[in-house]
Structures are given as structure tokens and as C-alpha cells.
């Protein structure tokens, strides 16, 4: 393999244009959730909007900067990425699930309140 071949095989896909497009998209997808929050929006819809925009931006980064695509030579990268996403989902989602139930079932204030109340009723 000569030198120019070696470089060409390792050249990232897409080139400068794809990086510029990705950077512009990332900029818009960063500024818009900040605009939503700094505009004073709140509530479930606003939370859903900023998390939705974050997920879209993550995909923009994956496609334009990490060059994750659907071409056949990418299949192992996609497999590794999906496995990473699964593990992250179990860790983050599982932690949140456990914490939520701990909060619901074991908050000391709630138990103490119920305890005091029942004692008051009994005496």
C-alpha cells in the first residue's frame, strides 16, 4: 500500500461540507432549547421539547461528526452503538426506576406523618 492510498482509506467520510452542515445544525439545535428556557417556558411540554431537541442533536452528532451510517461496512459500529445505548438505557432508566420507587415508598417524612397520625388517633 503506498502512502496516498493509506491516507485515502482512513479519510473521514463526508469531508468539510458535512462538518459545516453538522456544525450549523448543532448550533441551531443548541440555541433553540436555550431560547425555549430563557423565554420563560415551563411545564411538561417545554421539558419534552428540550429533551426531544437534545435527542435530535445527539443523532446529528452521530451522523455528521462520528460518521455513523447505514452502509454495510458500518454494521459493526452500529451494533456496538446499539449495545452501548442498551447498557446506558438499563443503567439510567433502571436507576431512575429504583430511585422513584425508593422516593415513593421510603420517604421518612411520609412514614413519620402516617405514624404520628395513627398514634394520635389511637390515643
Amino acid at each position, binding site marked *: 500500500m503506498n*502512502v496516498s492510498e*493509506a*491516507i485515502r482509506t482512513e479519510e473521514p467520510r463526508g469531508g468539510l461540507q458535512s462538518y459545516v452542515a453538522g456544525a450549523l445544525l448543532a448550533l441551531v439545535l443548541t440555541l433553540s*432549547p436555550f431560547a425555549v428556557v430563557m423565554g420563560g417556558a415551563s411545564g411538561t411540554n417545554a421539558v419534552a421539547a428540550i429533551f426531544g*431537541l*437534545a435527542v435530535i442533536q*445527539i443523532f446529528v*452528532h452521530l451522523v455528521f*461528526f462520528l460518521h455513523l451510517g447505514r452502509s454495510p461496512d458500518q454494521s*459493526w459500529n452500529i451494533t456496538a452503538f446499539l449495545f452501548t445505548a442498551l447498557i446506558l438505557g438499563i443503567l439510567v432508566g433502571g436507576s431512575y426506576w429504583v430511585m422513584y420507587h425508593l422516593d415513593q415508598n421510603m420517604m421518612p417524612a411520609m412514614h413519620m406523618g402516617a405514624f404520628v397520625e395513627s398514634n394520635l388517633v389511637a390515643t
Partner: protein
Amino acid sequence: MSSELLTIDTVRPYVPPPAQFVPREVASEHRTAATTVLGFLLLTFLLGLCFIGLEVKEFIRMVGEGAGPDRSAFLSAFFTLVGTHGLHVTSGLVWMAVMMVQTSRREFDAVLPRRLTCLSLFWHFLDIIWIGVFTVVYLAGAMS
């Protein structure tokens, strides 16, 4: 399974081609490529440095106001999360400085694009982490 998956490119020892075998037009192409790479590395380095500067400024201001990591569980988590990301960005800046030296000194051969690709993966992955951090910590935190 394609055959290219079976060749493990990264563990093969790199043998640089003797300089006189590199054609002159390829060598000049490489110099242009090296200049472009250096320019964008420098731009990325400066932007990263701005990011770290802002973060250090924020930390100093917060600690000055008494909102250090020892104040509450929230602030412990905040400083751990944002600080860990900041440490990774700082390591990326060191790595980038090393790559700038290597790009300006080494022949622009096969080993350099591979190292730059690894740096690119590290840097862009940090970016993806940061999307999560600013969404959950800064934006969702400001709303609640």
C-alpha cells in the same frame, strides 16, 4: 462477514516508507493537508480553551458565593458531573496540543490520520455527553 474485519490494522507495527519513495506531488499534497489540519486543530483547541475558561470562572464564582460541592447533595453531584466532563475536555486539549506538534513535525503518513481519527472520536463523544449535561443540568434545572 467481510474480510476486512479480520485484519486488525491497529496492532500491525508501522514501518514508515523511506522518504525518497514518496512522489514529490504527493509530498506537497500532504503539506497542504497538514496545514489545513493544523488550522482546524488550532481553532478547535482555542474554542475548547474558551469552554474550560468559562467553566473554571463559573466554578470559582460559585465557590466564592458559598455554593461549593460541600454545600448540598445537588452541588456535590453538579461539581462531580460537570467537573468530570471538564477534566475530559482538558485531557482532550492536551491530546490536541500533542497532535498539533506531531502534525507539524511528522510526515503526513498513515499513522497520523489514524491518531487524528481517535482524537476526533474522543472529542465528538465528549460533545455528545455535553448535550446531555446542558439539557438535564442547566436547562431542566433552570425550569424546575
